[in-house]
C-alpha cells in the first residue's frame, strides 16, 4: 500500500537525500473519513483532515490560542487573521513516546495582520508538522519560533513555508533544536517571495546542537524569489556543543549531562518565553531535562 504524502518540499532536489516529501506513517492513515462516525469514537484521539479547527481573528483584534496536544495524533488548524489583527498561536506537542503525530497549520494574514507562531515539538515517536503561512496582505508579518528535541529513535519531519505575497511583508523564522541518541530530523524551512511582494523582508535561522554520533540531521533552508525588491537571508548552524561553554560549566562542578541541560535550556529559553503559562514552560523544561538525563551517551 502506498503511503500518503503529508508534506512536500516546494522545489524538489536529489532523491538520495530523502528530503523531497514526508510520508504519513501507516498508523495515521486510518483516519475515518466518515464523519457520522464521530460520536462512536472509533479513533477518539484523531481529528479528521476534513474538519480543521477554525480560528478567525477579526480586524484590529488580538486573539491568543494555546494548544497542548497530549493525545491527539492528527491535528489541523486553519486561521485567518483579518486586517490589522494579531494571532498568537502556540502549539505544544507532548504526545507519549509510542505515538505518531501529524499536525497541519495554515494561516493567512490580511493587510497589516500579524501572526506569532510558537511551536514546541518534544513528544511522539514520529512527528510530522506542516506549517504554511500566507502573507497575503500588504504589510502583514509572521514571527515563527520553534524548538524541537529528538532522542532515542525519534523521527521528526518539520516543513515550514512562509509565502510573501503582499508588499512590505516581514517574516522571521527561528528554529532551534537538539538531537541525541539515534534521532533523525528533517527541517525544511522556506521563504518564498512571490512576484509583487515588493519591499518584503525575510529571515530564517536554524540552530541545531548535536549531542552524539548516531544522530541524523537534515537541514534544508530554501529561499525562492520572483521579486527583486526583497531582502531575504537564511542561515543554518549545526554542530556539537560549544566546547568552551561546556568546559566553563564543567569547571564549575557540573557533570556533562548537567552542563548539557543548562546549555539546551539556554538555547530553548527565548522560544519558551513565548509560552505564557509558567507551569507549562516548567513541564516542557522538565521533560527535556529528563530526556537528556536518560540519553544513551
Amino acid at each position, binding site marked *: 500500500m*502506498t503511503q500518503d*504524502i503529508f508534506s*512536500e518540499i*516546494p*522545489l*524538489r*532536489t*536529489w*532523491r538520495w*537525500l530523502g*528530503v*523531497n*516529501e514526508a510520508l504519513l506513517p501507516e498508523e495515521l492513515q486510518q483516519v475515518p473519513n466518515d464523519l457520522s462516525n464521530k460520536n462512536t469514537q472509533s479513533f477518539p484521539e484523531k481529528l479528521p483532515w476534513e474538519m480543521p479547527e477554525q480560528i478567525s481573528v477579526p480586524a484590529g483584534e488580538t486573539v491568543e490560542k494555546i494548544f497542548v496536544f497530549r493525545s491527539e495524533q492528527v491535528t489541523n488548524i486553519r486561521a485567518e487573521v483579518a486586517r490589522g489583527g494579531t494571532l498568537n498561536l502556540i502549539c505544544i506537542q507532548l504526545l507519549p513516546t509510542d505515538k505518531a503525530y501529524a499536525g497541519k497549520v495554515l494561516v493567512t494574514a490580511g493587510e497589516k495582520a500579524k501572526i506569532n507562531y510558537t511551536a514546541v515539538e518534544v513528544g511522539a515517536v514520529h512527528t510530522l508538522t506542516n506549517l504554511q503561512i500566507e502573507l497575503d496582505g500588504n504589510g502583514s508579518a509572521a514571527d515563527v519560533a520553534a524548538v524541537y528535541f529528538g532522542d532515542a529513535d525519534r523521527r521528526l519531519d518539520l516543513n515550514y513555508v512562509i509565502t510573501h*505575497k503582499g508588499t512590505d511583508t516581514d517574516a522571521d523564522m527561528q528554529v532551534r533544536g537538539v538531537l541525541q541518541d539515534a534521532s533523525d530530523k528533517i527541517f525544511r524551512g522556506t521563504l*518564498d*517571495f*512571490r*512576484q*509583487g511582494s*515588493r519591499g518584503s523582508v525575510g529571515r530564517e535561522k536554524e540552530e541545531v546542537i*548535536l*549531542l*552524539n*554520533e*548516531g*544522530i*541524523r*540531521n*537534515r*537541514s*534544508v*533552508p*530554501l*529561499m*525562492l*524569489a*520572483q*521579486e*527583486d*525588491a*526583497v*531582502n*531575504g*537571508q*537564511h*542561515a*543554518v*548552524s*549545526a*554542530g*556539537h556543543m560549544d566546547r568552551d561553554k561546556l568546559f566553563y560549566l564543567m569547571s564549575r562542578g557540573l557533570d556533562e549531562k548537567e552542563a548539557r541541560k543548562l546549555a539546551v535550556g539556554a538555547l530553548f529559553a527565548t522560544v519558551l518565553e513565548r509560552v505564557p503559562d509558567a507551569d507549562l514552560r516548567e513541564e516542557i523544561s522538565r521533560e527535556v531535562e529528563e530526556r537528556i538525563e536518560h540519553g544513551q551517551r
Partner: protein
Amino acid sequence: MEQKKTFVEDIERTLYDIRNEDRSVYKTERGLTEEIIRDISRQKKDPEWMLDFRLKSLEKYYQIPLPDWGPDISGLNMDDIVTYVRPGGKMAGNWQEVPEEIKATFDRLGIPEAERTSLSGVGAQYDSEVVYHRVQKELSDQGVIYTDFETAVHEYEDIVKEYFMKLVPPKDHKFAALHGAVWSGGSFVYVPEGVHVDIPLQSYFRLNAAGAGQFEHTLIICEKNSSLHFIEGCSAPRYNVTNLHAGCVELYVKEGARLRYSTIENWSRNMMNLNTKRALVEKDGLIEWVSGSFGSRVSCLYPSSILHGENARCEFTGVTFASRGQDLDTGATVVMLAPGTSANINTRTISKSGGAATYRSAVKVAPGARGAKCLVNCESLLLDEKSRSDTLPVMDIETDEVEIGHEAKIGRISDEAIFYLTSRGIGEEEAQAMIVRGFVEPVAKALPLEYAVEMNNLINMELVGGMG
C-alpha cells in the same frame, strides 16, 4: 497564479510505477541503437572492453528515467542524440559557419586571432600548436602525461581501464549513462608523484586538435604530493551547433596532492549543459573548483567532491549569471567521509532580464567523519523584477563532532549604493556594473588573470550592452 511550480506533476511521478515512464522514454529514444554505438566504437578503434562498457552504459541509459527535479529539459529532443553522436556529425567547419552572435562575442572579448582561426580547423593551428608542443615537451620531461582521450585509451590502456567512469559510474544518472555509451574526445592528464606542474594546462589546445564534441571525457590523476591547475576552456573556441552537452569530468586527487580545476562556461544560448564533474580526494589532498556559468539555455552543474581521506579539503568558488531565456541550476555537492575533512563553498548568482538562477547543493557528513567542517556562503542578486532566483541547499549530517554553517542572502543592488557611486560622477550603468563586478569579486580573485578579465567583460556585455 504567480507561481506555477511543477510539484503536482512530481507527486504523480513518485506514486506511479517508475517503469511505466521508462518504457515511454525508451520509445522516444529508439534512435540511439546498439548499431550506432558499435559504429562509434569501430571508428575509434576501441578495445573490446570499451565497446563492452559502451553497450552496458546504453542499457542503463534505456533504464534510467529523466530526473524529476531541476530545470525543465523537455525541450531536449532525445531523438536528436543520434545526430549528435553520429561520427562526423555537424560541427562548425570554419569561421564563416559560426553564427554572427558568437563571432561578435569573440570580437568583443578580443579573443586572439590565432585562437579564433583555430576554430576553422586544420588551416590555422600554428600558434596554439607551437605553444602546445612546447608545453608538451616540458611536461613529458617531468613524466606528465597530457593527451587526448582516444590516444589515452590506446597508449595508457591500463590506467584508463582502472579509473574510467569509476567515480561517475554510468548508473549514476541518465546522462552519465548516455556519456558512457557515446563519449568522444576529451583530455587525459596524469601527474606523477611529487611533480608540480607550474603552468596551468588549458584544455582547448587539446580539444581543438581532437575535434572533440559535447560528450568529452576528462580524466585527471594527481598522484601523491603532486599539484596541477587545469583550465577547462569552454568560453572561447568550444562553440558547437548541437544543443546537448553531457560531458564527464573525473578527478583523482591522491594523498597530499592539490588540484585546481577552473571553468568559465559560456556556451551558446541553445545549449542544454548537463555535465557531471566529480573529484575523489585522499588524505591531506585538496580540490579547488572555480566555476563560472554564463552561457547555455539550461545548465545542471554541481561539481561534487568526495572527501575520502583524512583531512581532505574542498574549496568551491562559483558564479552564475542567468539572463534572458536562461535557466541555470548550479551549485556543488560535498561528501565528507573521513575525520578532519573540510569544505568551503562560496557562490554568487545573478539573475537578469527574466533569467532564472538556482543554487542547489548537498553537503553530506557521514558517520565517523569526526571534526568535519563545512562553511557555505551563497549570495544571490536579482537585477530586475522579471527574473528569479532560488536557493536550495541540503545539509545531511550524521555525526555530532562537526561544525556546519550555511548562510545565504537574496536581494537586489541597493539604491543607496548606486546613489553613492553616481554621486561621485560614475554613470548609472557603470555604477551597476561596478557593483556586480564587486559582487563576483571573490570568484574573479580565484581565476587566472586572463579569465578574470574575460569574466568581467562578459558581465559588462550583459549589463552595459557592450564594451567601451
